[in-house]
């Protein structure tokens, strides 16, 4: 996943040299005045939990944390718009579809693992040069099992099952700027006999599903799922757990991706190049990686921690029962998209042009 080009390597060197200048000043900061950072992340219950689990301890230690709320795409656009000026935030959550772009364009800096002691507890694949994988969402088909039962429908087994005539007008689909878009279209590409290398094969299947609408924000689809306006959508397990707390009768099913079953979407965390508070940015990230924080945040939001012991703890939580795939065998069999195979420009163009709308 981390494609170390010559450019990023050079930028890493530059980053190190700047970091080398900093410790003197960092040491001068008294406890209780850690300064301020802004964190770019998703909104809604995700931000609330993140602030409770990570923001709160930082504040107690004397730092200030603010949030810039948008999709990773939207936040990247803000970075681009601020090019040449001071960065609009200090750390940022993102996903696989963006990491290469951002690294290549030097929007993010290499991480200083000396300042991230908690990262040692993570498996190797979670530690990259310029990001840490903090968590992962488990993507599948979220559906209202009561509505399905009333309509005499079985639980969906494949994404293509959403094309059932009885579901006409009741299915929403993540739009191209939504995080859960990618595993959904990859799943449909697999069901069409292709893979993430040729996502366009998914188009006819999406047109067959003919979603009622394409959602750009989880808050929006959460409202429509709760009201019963929408019965099913490719989404992630976290919202099954979160909305069940408000008694919304949701379940999730995990379609096959070839031999794999269910899909994982890694949540990545970067430190933004040009941050004026690199120390606090790292401290925020390290706090994020504390096993207890990982577990609490994962429990609150219904996502998968990276730390295996945290995963085992999470399995004891009754809320996860039947919603998350947590056994070793299941975890090892999760599909993770290989984004280096995705032709992004071609896919975006096809998405705008070839999807039948309205």
């Amino acid at each position, binding site marked *: 996943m981390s494609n170390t080009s010559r450019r990023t390597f050079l930028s890493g060197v530059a980053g190190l040299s700047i970091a080398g200048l900093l410790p003197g000043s960092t040491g001068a900061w008294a406890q209780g005045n850690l300064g301020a950072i802004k964190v770019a992340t998703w909104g809604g219950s995700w931000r609330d939990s993140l602030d409770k689990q990570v923001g709160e301890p930082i504040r107690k230690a004397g730092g200030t944390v603010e949030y810039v709320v948008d999709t990773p*795409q939207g936040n*990247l656009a803000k970075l681009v718009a601020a090019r040449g000026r001071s960065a609009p935030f200090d750390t940022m959550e993102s996903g696989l579809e963006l990491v290469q772009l951002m690294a290549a*364009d030097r929007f993010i800096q290499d991480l200083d693992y000396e300042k991230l002691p908690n990262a040692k507890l993570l498996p190797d694949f979670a530690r990259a040069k310029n990001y840490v994988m903090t968590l992962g969402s488990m993507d599948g088909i979220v559906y209202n099992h009561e509505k399905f039962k009333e309509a005499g429908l079985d639980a969906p087994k494949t994404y293509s099952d959403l094309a059932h005539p009885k579901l006409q007008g009741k299915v929403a689909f993540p739009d191209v700027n939504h995080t859960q878009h990618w595993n959904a279209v990859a799943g449909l590409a697999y069901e069409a006999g292709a893979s993430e290398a040729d996502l366009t094969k998914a188009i006819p299947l999406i047109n067959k599903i003919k979603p*009622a*609408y394409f959602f*750009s924000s989880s808050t929006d689809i959460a409202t429509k799922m709760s009201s019963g*306006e929408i019965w099913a959508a490719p989404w992630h397990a976290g919202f099954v757990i979160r909305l069940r707390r408000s008694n919304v009768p949701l379940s999730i099913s995990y379609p096959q991706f070839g031999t794999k079953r269910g899909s994982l979407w890694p949540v990545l965390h970067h430190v933004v190049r040009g941050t004026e508070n690199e120390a606090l940015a790292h401290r925020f990230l390290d706090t994020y990686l504390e096993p207890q924080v990982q577990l609490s945040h994962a429990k609150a939001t219904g996502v998968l921690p990276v730390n295996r012991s945290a995963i085992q703890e999470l399995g004891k939580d009754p809320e996860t029962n039947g919603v998350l795939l947590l056994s070793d065998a299941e975890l090892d069999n999760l599909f993770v998209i290989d984004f280096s195979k995705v032709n992004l420009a071609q896919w975006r163009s096809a998405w705008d042009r070839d999807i039948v*709308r*309205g």
Partner: protein
Amino acid sequence: MRIRRAYDGALALALAVSVVLFIVPQLFFVRQSFFESLAMGMMGDQLSFANYATILSDGFYIAVFVRTIVLSAIAALVALFIAYPTAYWLARLNSPVLRWLIILLLVSSFVSIVVKVLGLSMLLGSQGPFATFLRFVTLGWWSGSLLHNELAVAIGLVQYSLPLLIMLLFGVVQTIPKSLEDAALVHGASDWSLLRRILLPLSLNGIVTAGLIAFNMNMGAFTSAVLLGGGNVLTVPVVIQRKIVLEVDYPVASALSVLLTTAVIVINLLLVALRRGGPVGAGQGRQAA
């Protein structure tokens, strides 16, 4: 020459709104639109018309433009049809309630579009009253939602521009003395004749101006298209936003917005020219004499 001048002034107002809404924020986009995109907000250093050629030779973009213009025009027309009788009624309402109605209208025009759109999406959604009614009268045969299509977007556009249009046309109707209506009626005019021969000709300049303002607002409307269209209605502003946020392609986004501005200005000027050459209206007689 008073009416003529008032008319020109009103047109200048429409133009001024266009300038503020479209041109000013885009001046630097114009420059960007002539450079090649090198991804991630970077641009080449060669001036070219390549972005325009790409857009204008692509049926997808053409369809987006046509959709935006048709949707904006229909929404503006519908808004006029609703706003004019309302404005007329208000202007002729001889009651202390009037002041409160005007205040209500003002307040409602200040309500954030996001809030208005949210209200509409509840109203039009499958759990809303309209869908429930349709489900009931079709005995459950129809079970959809009125949201996430061009109709919903058009309704959103109408809803957003309505208070402004009513206030504009309220002013227009107020300038028509009530005695002209009395005169028409006492001299034998039917209500329809009064509307056709007196009220409409005397309001026409105001109606055209108000319609253009609504149209211009609709052309630039983003929130309604995104939230009520639910990704199903791709209008020019939506595509521009996607170009910027998803693909970080400033040059093509800039070229799109320059073309949007151009389309708006051309349509405005065309209508103005049409009005000047038109056969009816208070101003026309002045030129004939």
